[in-house]
């Protein structure tokens, strides 16, 4: 367990307390997209999610003097978001979605196997096409098409590069559920890539 914040993060906190606007903008740039994606797991619409995120930033500013650095700044911000979003979801009469892991499709379509083994090996991905700009759009669309909980987990883990522990803390997930959600999300994004990259997939 780490108790002390890295020096650069404590500097961010100090700068924020001192009212440094550029530091605030930097934080917003860093986390806004992810906050929105996580908020959308809880509430019904994009516009409500935007409100929740806006409220979160205000709560961050109003609470920054009380921030003690027992968790990372990032985890603290996402905790605030999760609490606000849950309150909002309850007011909307929505159930909190984490009991649900989304769908439970297999990672690879069963007809790709014969007797448990590959009927035909997965096709090679042509490098030229793989490194093209369109590939990034395919990934983006694939992530956007995932159920909200899977979307949040893959965004934090793979797009933002968070550790499993940070994701579990921010989203209040068990170790197993974090992995199940990540697994379903990655499998589906891989499948979308395959469909795009392999002509006759």
């Amino acid at each position: 367990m780490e108790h002390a914040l890295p020096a650069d993060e404590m500097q961010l906190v100090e700068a924020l307390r001192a009212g440094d606007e550029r530091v605030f903008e930097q934080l917003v740039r860093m986390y806004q997209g992810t906050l929105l994606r996580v908020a959308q797991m809880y509430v019904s619409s994009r516009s409500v999610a935007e409100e929740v995120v806006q409220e979160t930033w205000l709560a961050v500013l109003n609470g920054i003097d009380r921030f003690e650095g027992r968790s990372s700044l990032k985890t603290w911000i996402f905790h605030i978001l999760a609490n606000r979003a849950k309150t909002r979801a309850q007011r909307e009469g929505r159930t909190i979605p984490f009991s649900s892991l989304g769908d439970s499709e297999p990672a690879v379509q069963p007809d790709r196997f014969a007797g448990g083994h590959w009927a035909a090996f997965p096709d090679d991905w042509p490098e030229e096409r793989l490194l093209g700009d369109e590939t990034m759009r395919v990934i983006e669309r694939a992530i956007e098409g995932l159920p909200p909980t899977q979307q949040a987990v893959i965004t934090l883990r793979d797009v933002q590069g968070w550790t499993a522990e940070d994701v579990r803390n921010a989203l209040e997930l068990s170790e197993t559920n974090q992995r199940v959600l990540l697994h379903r999300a990655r499998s589906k994004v891989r499948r979308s890539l395959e469909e795009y990259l392999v002509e006759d997939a």
Partner: protein
Amino acid sequence: MTETAMEISCQELVELVTDYLEGALAPEDQDRFDSHIAACDGCRRYLEQIRVTVTLSGRLSPEQLDPAAQAALLQAFRNWKGERK
């Protein structure tokens, strides 16, 4: 139980890939995974494709804030700062 009875199939392996990459497999499953992967080109390729998927996802740029929301946030920041003085 014989060795063969404990082997995992390709279809099972693709469902264990995330646990494998997360280091969450039990030691005996880890061994089965490793020996399968060493012998199976198809599963090696699959695992590699999952790794590529993860790497490329990390190159996506996070969604940017629209200018109106940005302006509203900065205004809120300035108000907050003003009240602190």
